[in-house]
């Protein structure tokens, strides 16, 4: 049924830390590896070794430059389904293939019922659903529904593949319905935010903002230092020592 459950018992989701993500793509490749053999199998690639390789991936890692007049920084930005509380991708589905689970809030596509009309992908502002050209059906993040309840796996592996693979710990998995859960607590403490809240789908996954940089060397510092022909410092004693050494040596 494409009508949404009034309330879900759990709100399982991810918390993605943009401060420490290094953009290594480990989560994306791990996701692809697991899901091409799991619930979404196969996650087809078209022309993988040819001129125009493309395929269905459920997790994509973007990199953005965030700049002010003063400084700029790179922010790596993993993007996947946010398992929204009121997702229109589910309600627009004409067949009932898309649904939101009442027990944990996971949004899934039943690949045996999908007719491949692609309307759900039009309804998603996050670009999270990807059409599988070979299978003729829509694919999306399952929050590794075939891992997290899988009693054949060791306890530490019963988390989404992307979370398990992340080498920096930039991805957390938990229940947002429980205010004491890991994700709820960290999101509260670090200012976790929703993507495009104005659209009104109430995304479950949240993002942690990049922290302010303690040691930021700004464009102004660089310019000022260049004008004085000295290296820029953050003002610490050791850097001032280096600055002095630099000055002595360039004499």
């Amino acid at each position, binding site marked *: *049924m*494409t*009508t949404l459950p009034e309330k879900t018992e759990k709100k399982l989701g991810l918390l993605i830390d943009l401060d420490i993500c290094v*953009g290594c793509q480990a989560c*994306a490749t791990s996701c692809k590896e697991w899901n091409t053999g799991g619930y979404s199998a196969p996650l087809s690639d078209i022309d993988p070794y040819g001129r*125009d*390789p*493309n*395929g*269905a*991936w459920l997790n*994509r890692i*973007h*990199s*953005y*430059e*965030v*700049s*002010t007049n003063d400084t700029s920084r*790179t*922010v790596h930005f993993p*993007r996947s389904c946010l398992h929204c509380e009121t997702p*229109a991708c*589910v*309600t*627009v*589905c*004409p*067949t*009932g*293939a898309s649904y939101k689970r009442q027990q944990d809030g996971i949004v899934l596509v039943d690949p045996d*019922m*999908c*007719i*491949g*009309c*692609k*309307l759900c*992908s*039009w*309804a*998603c*502002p996050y*670009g999270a659903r*990807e*059409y*599988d*050209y070979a*299978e*003729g*059906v829509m694919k999306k993040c399952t929050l590794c529904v075939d891992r997290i309840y899988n009693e054949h796996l060791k306890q530490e592996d019963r988390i989404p593949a992307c979370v398990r693979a992340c080498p920096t710990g930039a991805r957390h998995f938990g229940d947002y319905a429980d205010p004491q859960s890991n994700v709820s607590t960290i999101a509260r403490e670090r200012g976790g935010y*929703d*993507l*495009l809240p*104005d*659209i*009104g789908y109430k995304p479950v996954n949240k*993002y942690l*903002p*990049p922290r302010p940089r303690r040691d930021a060397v700004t464009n102004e510092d660089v310019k000022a230092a260049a004008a004085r022909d000295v290296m820029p410092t953050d003002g610490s004693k050791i850097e001032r020592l280096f600055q002095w050494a630099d000055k002595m040596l360039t004499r």
Partner: protein
Amino acid sequence: MHPAYSVILFTTSSGAGLGLLFWLGLANALGLLPSSATFGYFSVGLGLTLLSAGLLSSTFHLGRPERAWRAFTQWQSSWLSREGVAASATYLPALIFAIGWDLYGQTGGIIAIAGLAMAVLAVITLFTTGMIYASLPTIRQWNQPLTAPNYIVLGLASGAVVLTALLAMFDHVPVWAVWVSIICLTAGWAMKTLYWMAILQQEPRYTVGAATGLGRFGDVRQLDPPHTMANFVMREMGYAVARKHANKLRRISVALAFVAPAVLSVVMLVADPDLDIVLALLATVSMAVGLAMERWLFFAEAEHVSMLFYGRQAA
């Protein structure tokens, strides 16, 4: 948004078919149609053919057309499902209307009521088609109050022009049919113009800074995309038409879809009735080409919010 040719063909063809069925049902109830069974056979037949051709072509863009029947099940939440149900429901009174008229020579009483039911369902179907697009908050150019009314008016206008051509083939065109065409074409032109003015004047709703939530830290631009070649999302949602081309296409589509058929209709009012058939057919062809362009633009001008993640600055 990528303009899928099957969807352009579907919405224009079924739109004209539904418009034609609407006018047939209404005109029959008012006693305005020729009672000839041959006319009934051809006119209702053409309406249903256009509708069926549209519905059939809409299955061409499905990944799994053999499962299309499932699309009738989720009418409680999905406008696409509602469209399928409404379009199919239109066949029932349409067939009763056609059988009563063609086989039994009856156009009054219960047959007239079936014709009216067909007319109402035709308009409902046009409305559901419009709502599929109008209900998506992800695409500003579609999420507009005029989107659904446009689908209705354009369907009724193309139906009126086709009806005029059909009437011309059987006899001289009655004045009322020409006036209905002129009024519908004027309304279509006015509403489509208002729609274009609205979407061109509005500011984009979202920026890449808002989409990523990083705008509060500075100007955001894409540094590295997630992959080297275009993926499904970029192919489907990333299609964009150059503003310069859009302006030109908009003018040509207005000229072909509204101005030319309206002028030809006015000529029909004053010219030799023997020319009716030529003028009406010209109007139909012109409108068909113009509406196909209008529908192509409807997709090509639509900007999807997800493209903000892929390098577009605002949508």
